[in-house]
Protein backbone atom coordinates (compact mmCIF):
# COMPACT_ATOMS: atom_id res chain seq x y z
CA UNK A 1 0.00 0.00 0.00
CA UNK A 2 2.76 2.37 0.99
CA UNK A 3 4.62 1.54 -2.17
CA UNK A 4 1.49 2.23 -4.23
CA UNK A 5 0.98 5.62 -2.59
CA UNK A 6 4.65 6.47 -3.08
CA UNK A 7 4.44 5.56 -6.76
CA UNK A 8 1.26 7.63 -7.18
CA UNK A 9 2.83 10.62 -5.44
CA UNK A 10 5.91 10.30 -7.61
CA UNK A 11 3.78 10.14 -10.73
CA UNK A 12 1.75 13.13 -9.58
CA UNK A 13 4.88 15.15 -8.91
CA UNK A 14 6.29 14.21 -12.28
CA UNK A 15 3.04 15.14 -13.99
CA UNK A 16 2.90 18.46 -12.11
CA UNK A 17 6.49 19.23 -13.01
CA UNK A 18 5.73 18.39 -16.61
CA UNK A 19 2.68 20.61 -16.60
CA UNK A 20 4.67 23.43 -15.05
CA UNK A 21 7.37 23.03 -17.67
CA UNK A 22 4.77 23.09 -20.43
CA UNK A 23 3.56 26.45 -19.19
CA UNK A 24 6.96 28.01 -19.74
CA UNK A 25 7.03 29.26 -23.32
CA UNK A 26 10.06 29.13 -25.54
CA UNK A 27 11.17 32.68 -26.17
CA UNK A 28 14.48 31.94 -27.87
CA UNK A 29 14.98 33.46 -31.28
CA UNK A 30 15.04 36.73 -33.17
CA UNK A 31 12.35 39.25 -32.43
CA UNK A 32 11.85 41.93 -35.07
CA UNK A 33 11.92 45.66 -34.38
CA UNK A 34 10.09 46.70 -31.24
CA UNK A 35 6.88 48.67 -31.57
CA UNK A 36 4.29 50.26 -29.39
CA UNK A 37 0.96 48.51 -28.95
CA UNK A 38 -2.43 49.47 -27.61
CA UNK A 39 -2.37 48.82 -23.87
CA UNK A 40 -4.17 45.68 -22.76
CA UNK A 41 -7.10 46.99 -20.64
CA UNK A 42 -6.93 44.06 -18.23
CA UNK A 43 -3.24 44.57 -17.62
CA UNK A 44 -3.75 48.32 -17.25
CA UNK A 45 -6.31 47.57 -14.53
CA UNK A 46 -3.78 45.42 -12.73
CA UNK A 47 -1.16 48.16 -12.62
CA UNK A 48 -0.51 49.69 -9.20
CA UNK A 49 -2.26 53.00 -8.49
CA UNK A 50 -0.46 56.13 -9.56
CA UNK A 51 0.89 54.51 -12.72
CA UNK A 52 0.76 56.35 -16.03
CA UNK A 53 1.02 54.47 -19.34
CA UNK A 54 3.38 56.27 -21.72
CA UNK A 55 2.52 56.18 -25.41
CA UNK A 56 6.06 56.66 -26.68
CA UNK A 57 7.00 53.03 -27.34
CA UNK A 58 8.33 52.12 -30.77
CA UNK A 59 8.85 54.90 -33.26
CA UNK A 60 7.01 57.59 -31.30
CA UNK A 61 9.00 60.13 -29.30
CA UNK A 62 7.91 63.01 -27.11
CA UNK A 63 8.87 66.57 -28.04
CA UNK A 64 10.71 68.85 -25.64
CA UNK A 65 8.94 69.43 -22.29
CA UNK A 66 6.48 66.55 -22.72
CA UNK A 67 6.83 63.56 -20.43
CA UNK A 68 3.65 61.61 -21.11
CA UNK A 69 2.02 62.15 -17.74
CA UNK A 70 5.01 61.35 -15.57
CA UNK A 71 4.98 63.51 -12.46
CA UNK A 72 8.52 64.81 -12.34
CA UNK A 73 10.04 66.03 -9.09
CA UNK A 74 11.21 69.68 -9.13
CA UNK A 75 14.95 68.97 -9.22
CA UNK A 76 14.60 66.58 -12.14
CA UNK A 77 12.32 69.02 -13.91
CA UNK A 78 14.95 71.76 -13.60
CA UNK A 79 17.48 69.45 -15.21
CA UNK A 80 15.07 68.55 -18.00
CA UNK A 81 14.26 72.20 -18.69
CA UNK A 82 17.88 73.32 -19.04
CA UNK A 83 18.78 70.35 -21.26
CA UNK A 84 19.77 71.41 -24.76
CA UNK A 85 19.39 68.77 -27.47
CA UNK A 86 22.48 69.90 -29.35
CA UNK A 87 24.58 69.04 -26.29
CA UNK A 88 24.01 65.38 -27.09
CA UNK A 89 25.44 65.84 -30.57
CA UNK A 90 29.04 65.69 -29.48
CA UNK A 91 31.71 63.07 -30.00
CA UNK A 92 31.83 62.34 -26.30
CA UNK A 93 28.10 61.81 -25.93
CA UNK A 94 26.46 60.68 -29.13
CA UNK A 95 27.47 57.06 -28.64
CA UNK A 96 26.65 56.82 -24.98
CA UNK A 97 24.00 54.11 -24.80
CA UNK A 98 20.77 54.83 -22.99
CA UNK A 99 19.73 52.53 -20.20
CA UNK A 100 17.22 49.73 -20.67
CA UNK A 101 14.47 52.11 -19.52
CA UNK A 102 14.63 53.79 -22.93
CA UNK A 103 16.42 51.14 -24.99
CA UNK A 104 13.84 48.39 -24.59
CA UNK A 105 11.02 50.40 -26.15
CA UNK A 106 12.98 51.46 -29.22
CA UNK A 107 12.31 50.27 -32.75
CA UNK A 108 15.14 47.77 -32.83
CA UNK A 109 15.20 43.99 -32.79
CA UNK A 110 16.61 41.65 -30.18
CA UNK A 111 17.59 38.05 -29.80
CA UNK A 112 16.52 35.99 -26.81
CA UNK A 113 18.58 33.01 -25.70
CA UNK A 114 16.68 31.05 -23.10
CA UNK A 115 18.09 28.46 -20.73
CA UNK A 116 16.64 27.16 -17.51
CA UNK A 117 18.73 29.27 -15.18
CA UNK A 118 19.72 32.16 -17.41
CA UNK A 119 18.01 34.16 -20.14
CA UNK A 120 20.03 36.46 -22.37
CA UNK A 121 18.48 39.43 -24.14
CA UNK A 122 20.79 40.61 -26.90
CA UNK A 123 19.64 43.99 -28.12
CA UNK A 124 20.74 45.36 -31.47
CA UNK A 125 20.49 48.90 -30.12
CA UNK A 126 23.98 49.88 -28.95
CA UNK A 127 24.99 46.19 -28.84
CA UNK A 128 23.50 45.92 -25.36
CA UNK A 129 23.40 42.51 -23.68
CA UNK A 130 21.20 41.76 -20.71
CA UNK A 131 21.62 38.76 -18.42
CA UNK A 132 18.50 37.67 -16.58
CA UNK A 133 19.36 35.27 -13.77
CA UNK A 134 16.63 32.67 -13.33
CA UNK A 135 18.30 30.65 -10.57
CA UNK A 136 16.58 32.27 -7.62
CA UNK A 137 19.40 34.56 -6.61
CA UNK A 138 18.81 38.05 -5.22
CA UNK A 139 20.28 41.32 -6.42
CA UNK A 140 23.82 41.57 -5.00
CA UNK A 141 24.53 44.63 -2.88
CA UNK A 142 27.86 45.42 -4.46
CA UNK A 143 27.16 44.88 -8.14
CA UNK A 144 28.17 48.04 -10.03
CA UNK A 145 25.64 50.21 -11.80
CA UNK A 146 25.44 49.89 -15.57
CA UNK A 147 23.09 50.79 -18.40
CA UNK A 148 21.63 47.28 -18.32
CA UNK A 149 21.57 46.97 -14.55
CA UNK A 150 21.27 43.68 -12.69
CA UNK A 151 18.30 41.50 -13.61
CA UNK A 152 16.68 38.55 -11.91
CA UNK A 153 13.74 36.72 -13.41
CA UNK A 154 11.01 34.24 -12.64
CA UNK A 155 8.06 32.66 -14.38
CA UNK A 156 4.58 33.71 -13.35
CA UNK A 157 2.70 31.02 -15.23
CA UNK A 158 3.63 31.63 -18.85
CA UNK A 159 4.78 35.20 -18.21
CA UNK A 160 8.44 36.02 -17.72
CA UNK A 161 8.85 38.59 -14.96
CA UNK A 162 12.17 40.46 -14.87
CA UNK A 163 13.21 42.68 -11.97
CA UNK A 164 16.12 45.07 -12.61
CA UNK A 165 18.02 47.46 -10.35
CA UNK A 166 21.46 49.11 -10.32
CA UNK A 167 20.78 50.96 -13.55
CA UNK A 168 23.03 53.94 -14.27
CA UNK A 169 21.42 57.34 -14.65
CA UNK A 170 20.15 57.82 -18.18
CA UNK A 171 17.26 59.15 -20.21
CA UNK A 172 13.64 58.12 -19.76
CA UNK A 173 12.05 59.88 -22.71
CA UNK A 174 15.04 61.06 -24.78
CA UNK A 175 14.14 64.70 -24.34
CA UNK A 176 16.05 65.76 -21.26
CA UNK A 177 14.31 63.76 -18.55
CA UNK A 178 16.68 61.36 -16.82
CA UNK A 179 16.03 58.67 -14.26
CA UNK A 180 18.38 58.32 -11.32
CA UNK A 181 20.53 55.33 -10.43
CA UNK A 182 17.81 54.29 -7.97
CA UNK A 183 15.30 53.53 -10.70
CA UNK A 184 13.60 50.15 -10.33
CA UNK A 185 12.26 48.38 -13.41
CA UNK A 186 9.91 45.42 -13.59
CA UNK A 187 9.16 43.91 -16.99
CA UNK A 188 6.71 41.24 -18.05
CA UNK A 189 7.03 39.32 -21.30
CA UNK A 190 4.41 36.98 -22.71
CA UNK A 191 3.59 35.40 -26.05
CA UNK A 192 0.50 36.16 -28.07
CA UNK A 193 -1.93 33.32 -28.85
CA UNK A 194 -0.16 32.37 -32.07
CA UNK A 195 3.28 32.42 -30.49
CA UNK A 196 4.58 34.79 -33.13
CA UNK A 197 4.26 38.03 -31.16
CA UNK A 198 6.10 38.78 -27.97
CA UNK A 199 4.41 41.34 -25.77
CA UNK A 200 6.18 43.34 -23.12
CA UNK A 201 5.07 45.55 -20.26
CA UNK A 202 7.71 47.75 -18.70
CA UNK A 203 7.03 49.39 -15.34
CA UNK A 204 9.42 51.74 -13.60
CA UNK A 205 9.58 53.86 -10.51
CA UNK A 206 12.23 56.26 -9.30
CA UNK A 207 12.03 57.79 -5.82
CA UNK A 208 14.53 60.52 -6.75
CA UNK A 209 12.88 61.68 -9.97
CA UNK A 210 9.21 60.70 -10.13
CA UNK A 211 6.15 61.16 -7.93
CA UNK A 212 4.29 58.52 -9.90
CA UNK A 213 5.14 55.35 -11.79
CA UNK A 214 5.60 54.84 -15.52
CA UNK A 215 4.61 51.96 -17.79
CA UNK A 216 4.98 51.10 -21.46
CA UNK A 217 3.39 48.39 -23.58
CA UNK A 218 5.57 46.97 -26.34
CA UNK A 219 5.63 44.16 -28.88
CA UNK A 220 8.09 42.33 -31.11
CA UNK A 221 7.41 39.88 -33.95
CA UNK A 222 9.16 36.54 -34.29
CA UNK A 223 11.20 36.18 -37.48
CA UNK A 224 12.86 32.76 -37.80
CA UNK A 225 16.39 32.64 -39.12
CA UNK A 226 17.26 36.29 -38.51
CA UNK A 227 19.87 37.80 -36.22
CA UNK A 228 20.59 41.19 -34.76
CA UNK A 229 23.25 43.17 -36.57
CA UNK A 230 26.32 44.81 -35.00
CA UNK A 231 25.54 48.38 -33.97
CA UNK A 232 29.12 49.59 -33.42
CA UNK A 233 28.23 53.21 -32.84
CA UNK A 234 30.52 55.68 -34.60
CA UNK A 235 30.88 58.90 -32.56
CA UNK A 236 32.22 60.91 -35.49
CA UNK A 237 28.62 61.08 -36.66
CA UNK A 238 28.24 64.05 -34.30
CA UNK A 239 30.71 66.08 -36.37
CA UNK A 240 28.28 66.19 -39.27
CA UNK A 241 25.73 68.01 -37.21
CA UNK A 242 28.16 70.35 -35.43
CA UNK A 243 29.84 71.31 -38.71
CA UNK A 244 26.60 72.75 -40.05
CA UNK A 245 26.28 76.51 -39.97
CA UNK A 246 23.08 77.99 -38.66
CA UNK A 247 21.06 79.68 -41.35
CA UNK A 248 20.11 83.34 -40.77
Amino acid at each position, binding site marked *: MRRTVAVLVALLLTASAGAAQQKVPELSGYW*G*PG*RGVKPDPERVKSLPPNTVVLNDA*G*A*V*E*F*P*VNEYGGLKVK*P*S*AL*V*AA*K*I*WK*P*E*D*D*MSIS*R*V*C*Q*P*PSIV*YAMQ*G*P*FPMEIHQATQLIVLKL*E*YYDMVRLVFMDGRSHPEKVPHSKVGHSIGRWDGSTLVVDTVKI*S*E*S*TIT*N*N*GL*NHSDRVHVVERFWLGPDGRTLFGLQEFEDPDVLDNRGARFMAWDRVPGEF*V*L*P*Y*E*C*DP*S*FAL*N*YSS*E*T*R*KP
Partner: protein
Amino acid sequence: MLSRLTGALLLASALAGATVAAHHSFAVFFDDSKNIEVRGTVTDFRFTNPHGVITITGARTSGGAPETWRAETNAPTILTRRGWSATSLKKGDVITIEGWPSRDGKNYIRMRRVLRADGTVLGAPAAAPGTDPTGEKR
Protein backbone atom coordinates in the same frame (compact mmCIF):
# COMPACT_ATOMS: atom_id res chain seq x y z
CA MET B 1 17.78 82.37 2.16
CA LEU B 2 15.91 79.12 2.01
CA SER B 3 14.75 79.79 -1.51
CA ARG B 4 18.32 80.60 -2.60
CA LEU B 5 19.58 77.41 -1.05
CA THR B 6 16.79 75.43 -2.64
CA GLY B 7 17.53 77.04 -5.97
CA ALA B 8 21.22 76.27 -5.67
CA LEU B 9 20.48 72.67 -4.82
CA LEU B 10 18.11 72.34 -7.75
CA LEU B 11 20.65 73.87 -10.10
CA ALA B 12 23.44 71.66 -8.76
CA SER B 13 21.25 68.63 -9.22
CA ALA B 14 20.37 69.73 -12.72
CA LEU B 15 23.98 70.29 -13.72
CA ALA B 16 25.01 66.98 -12.20
CA GLY B 17 22.54 65.25 -14.46
CA ALA B 18 23.37 67.25 -17.53
CA THR B 19 26.26 65.07 -18.60
CA VAL B 20 24.54 61.74 -18.80
CA ALA B 21 21.90 62.18 -21.48
CA ALA B 22 22.50 60.00 -24.48
CA HIS B 23 21.28 59.77 -28.02
CA HIS B 24 19.40 62.53 -29.82
CA SER B 25 15.70 62.46 -30.53
CA PHE B 26 13.81 62.69 -33.82
CA ALA B 27 10.98 64.67 -32.28
CA VAL B 28 13.35 67.15 -30.68
CA PHE B 29 15.52 67.76 -33.75
CA PHE B 30 13.14 67.50 -36.68
CA ASP B 31 9.75 68.96 -37.57
CA ASP B 32 7.55 66.10 -38.73
CA SER B 33 4.76 68.51 -39.68
CA LYS B 34 6.85 69.80 -42.59
CA ASN B 35 8.43 68.22 -45.64
CA ILE B 36 11.58 69.19 -47.46
CA GLU B 37 12.98 68.01 -50.79
CA VAL B 38 16.54 68.69 -51.88
CA ARG B 39 18.17 67.65 -55.16
CA GLY B 40 21.89 67.57 -55.75
CA THR B 41 25.12 65.65 -56.20
CA VAL B 42 26.47 63.33 -53.55
CA THR B 43 29.81 64.46 -52.14
CA ASP B 44 29.99 62.02 -49.22
CA PHE B 45 28.11 59.04 -47.84
CA ARG B 46 28.80 57.44 -44.50
CA PHE B 47 26.97 54.35 -43.40
CA THR B 48 27.63 53.92 -39.70
CA ASN B 49 25.41 53.87 -36.63
CA PRO B 50 23.76 55.64 -34.95
CA HIS B 51 22.84 57.27 -38.27
CA GLY B 52 24.13 57.33 -41.79
CA VAL B 53 24.78 60.73 -43.33
CA ILE B 54 24.40 61.75 -46.97
CA THR B 55 26.16 64.98 -47.94
CA ILE B 56 25.13 66.64 -51.18
CA THR B 57 25.68 69.89 -52.97
CA GLY B 58 22.30 70.96 -54.14
CA ALA B 59 19.21 73.03 -53.59
CA ARG B 60 15.60 72.68 -52.59
CA THR B 61 13.51 71.50 -55.50
CA SER B 62 11.30 74.50 -54.79
CA GLY B 63 14.23 76.76 -55.68
CA GLY B 64 17.32 78.40 -54.23
CA ALA B 65 21.05 78.53 -54.72
CA PRO B 66 23.17 75.36 -54.40
CA GLU B 67 24.48 74.77 -50.90
CA THR B 68 25.85 71.94 -48.86
CA TRP B 69 23.09 69.82 -47.30
CA ARG B 70 23.37 66.87 -45.00
CA ALA B 71 20.70 64.23 -44.55
CA GLU B 72 20.64 61.98 -41.56
CA THR B 73 19.32 58.49 -42.25
CA ASN B 74 17.81 55.81 -40.06
CA ALA B 75 20.26 53.61 -38.26
CA PRO B 76 22.17 51.64 -40.91
CA THR B 77 21.15 48.40 -39.18
CA ILE B 78 17.56 49.30 -40.03
CA LEU B 79 18.46 50.45 -43.54
CA THR B 80 20.36 47.23 -44.19
CA ARG B 81 17.09 45.35 -43.77
CA ARG B 82 15.57 47.68 -46.34
CA GLY B 83 18.19 46.84 -48.93
CA TRP B 84 20.70 49.61 -48.31
CA SER B 85 24.45 49.11 -47.98
CA ALA B 86 27.61 51.19 -47.60
CA THR B 87 27.89 51.27 -51.40
CA SER B 88 24.32 52.32 -52.11
CA LEU B 89 25.52 55.84 -52.90
CA LYS B 90 28.79 57.12 -54.28
CA LYS B 91 30.30 60.50 -54.98
CA GLY B 92 28.83 62.05 -58.09
CA ASP B 93 25.45 60.36 -57.86
CA VAL B 94 22.60 62.75 -58.55
CA ILE B 95 19.79 62.19 -56.08
CA THR B 96 16.74 63.76 -54.53
CA ILE B 97 16.34 63.52 -50.79
CA GLU B 98 12.87 63.77 -49.30
CA GLY B 99 12.54 64.21 -45.58
CA TRP B 100 11.79 66.38 -42.60
CA PRO B 101 13.60 69.67 -41.92
CA SER B 102 15.71 70.44 -38.91
CA ARG B 103 13.88 72.53 -36.32
CA ASP B 104 16.85 74.89 -35.92
CA GLY B 105 16.97 75.93 -39.58
CA LYS B 106 20.23 74.24 -40.48
CA ASN B 107 20.78 72.60 -43.84
CA TYR B 108 20.20 69.35 -42.05
CA ILE B 109 17.45 66.91 -42.98
CA ARG B 110 16.05 63.69 -41.61
CA MET B 111 15.77 61.45 -44.64
CA ARG B 112 12.46 59.77 -45.45
CA ARG B 113 13.51 58.42 -48.82
CA VAL B 114 16.07 58.91 -51.57
CA LEU B 115 15.32 58.90 -55.28
CA ARG B 116 17.97 58.28 -57.88
CA ALA B 117 18.25 60.45 -60.99
CA ASP B 118 16.04 57.98 -62.90
CA GLY B 119 13.32 58.29 -60.28
CA THR B 120 13.80 54.91 -58.65
CA VAL B 121 13.59 54.78 -54.88
CA LEU B 122 16.66 53.59 -53.04
CA GLY B 123 15.66 50.71 -50.77
CA ALA B 124 12.21 50.45 -49.29
CA PRO B 125 10.70 53.80 -48.29
CA ALA B 126 9.87 54.60 -44.70
CA ALA B 127 6.51 55.75 -43.43
CA ALA B 128 5.86 58.85 -41.38
CA PRO B 129 7.22 58.93 -37.83
CA GLY B 130 5.04 57.15 -35.36
CA THR B 131 3.51 54.82 -37.89
CA ASP B 132 6.41 52.68 -38.97
CA PRO B 133 7.20 49.67 -36.80
CA THR B 134 10.75 49.63 -38.09
CA GLY B 135 11.18 53.09 -36.70
CA GLU B 136 12.13 56.56 -37.77
CA LYS B 137 14.18 57.42 -34.73
CA ARG B 138 17.66 56.35 -33.71
